[in-house]
């Protein structure tokens, strides 16, 4: 069998086919799992009218690493779908807020578990499901609900993606991935929801057959391109957490 390696040489090459108007999700919860290098490449690539899916728009911490908010600031974004579109502290103003309030960009605020489940549903061929989350809140206003076994549930739809940009610790050349600790977060479900998944990888890409099949976190059938993250400063890596601006 000729199994071709999915490794590509540069982040630029990895993102070069992203068209205007694409829907792209970004792994990550706080620093772990965020594809900093792919975000940077997408900033340089310049694709426009994008719909971006991620936990947050970013920008709440210093020093600031590449985040979704920078793509907004760069004029590349039509809409974001996130669990945070504003800070919960009146004293924090995140960079995204200005663009959202001025109407330059649209946003859809989704509870984090619903976001994860909508991505999982897209990857699992489930077009819609019911959830107890957000029932009785402003987010459920005017939307379809249903009482099942005496409890009220909200109807939610799958969220399919064109691309998933994720970060992993280890990959073999066929795209099987392993994540270290909470680096995993959204990455595996985003990979299942996307037509094209691009993973930036901490360690050197290992030969096919090196990873125990029982210990694969994301199967290679979901992964299309791999890029090794070079050492700093060329490559971007998670840093120690700084206290938030107050």
């Amino acid at each position, binding site marked *: 069998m000729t199994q071709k390696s999915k490794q590509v040489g540069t982040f630029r090459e990895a993102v070069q086919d992203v068209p205007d108007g694409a829907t792209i999700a970004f792994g990550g919860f706080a620093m772990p799992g965020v594809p900093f290098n792919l975000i940077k490449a997408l900033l340089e690539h310049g694709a426009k009218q994008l719909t971006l899916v991620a936990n947050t728009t970013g920008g709440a911490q210093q020093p600031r690493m590449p985040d979704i908010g920078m793509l907004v600031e760069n004029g590349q974004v039509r809409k974001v779908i996130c669990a945070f579109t*504003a800070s919960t502290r009146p004293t924090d103003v995140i960079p995204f807020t200005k663009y959202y309030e001025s109407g330059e960009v649209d946003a859809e*605020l989704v509870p984090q578990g619903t976001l994860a489940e909508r991505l*999982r549903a897209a990857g699992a061929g489930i077009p819609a499901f019911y*959830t107890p*989350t957000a029932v009785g809140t402003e*987010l459920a206003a005017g939307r379809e609900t249903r009482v099942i076994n005496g409890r009220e549930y909200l109807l939610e739809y799958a969220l399919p993606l064109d691309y998933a940009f994720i970060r992993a610790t280890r990959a073999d050349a066929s795209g099987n991935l392993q994540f270290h*600790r909470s680096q995993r977060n959204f990455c595996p479900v985003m990979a299942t929801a996307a037509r094209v998944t691009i993973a930036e990888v901490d360690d050197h890409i290992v030969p096919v057959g090196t990873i125990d099949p029982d210990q694969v976190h994301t199967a290679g059938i979901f992964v299309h391109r791999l890029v090794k993250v070079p050492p700093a400063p060329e490559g971007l890596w998670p840093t120690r957490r700084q206290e938030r601006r107050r």
Partner: protein
Amino acid sequence: MSGTKGLNRQQMADRIAFEFQDGWIVNLGVGIPTMCSNTDIGDRDITYHSENGVIGYGPIAPQGEEDLNLVNAGGQNVTLKAGAAVVHHADSFAIIRGGRIDVTVMGAYEVACNGDFANWKIAGQKGGGIGGAMDLAACARRVFIIMEQTTRSGAPRLVAQCALPVTARGVVKLVATNYGLFEPIGDGFRIREIAPGVTLDEVHATVGCKLTVPENLLTVRLVS
């Protein structure tokens, strides 16, 4: 400003942590709640769950020993306890919606006496920060809140009904503030314990609805 009187942040976290029972699975939200994992509650076996898929974390990592790929809900680098396990986000919220979380501890702007609470959207703001709060609030077996007794301008946070958009309805079981420990009981709040250095008059003046005071009002317990 009420934040300077009564319990400090770690004491509020401690008091809530003392409520955790042996064998509980506990989710701690951003801010003061994450400080509960630092509290010594003796030999009770508690599993701390974080919505990013970490099951069984422990105290904050000592400086210089952080694993940069391991964080709690607040993005702080934590340690793992023996027996920990990591899952992805969809599986992590499956645990939450599936009813496995014995208690979720969160911050809030307001708690109403019917158990409603608000913690995701500031007045007049476009958008908000929900995170995992709505999933946790709707699905955990118990919701405990830690917050300051009043807003910075002195307005009550324990109220007759929420003015801000709610996170979930009728779910709050217990509230720790710097003034004491409160339970929403439908037509008002019951104060279970009062903070050292706070008077009952000060409590009455800072609760925005009916307050029920038990005959033998205890002082907030600060040891496990």
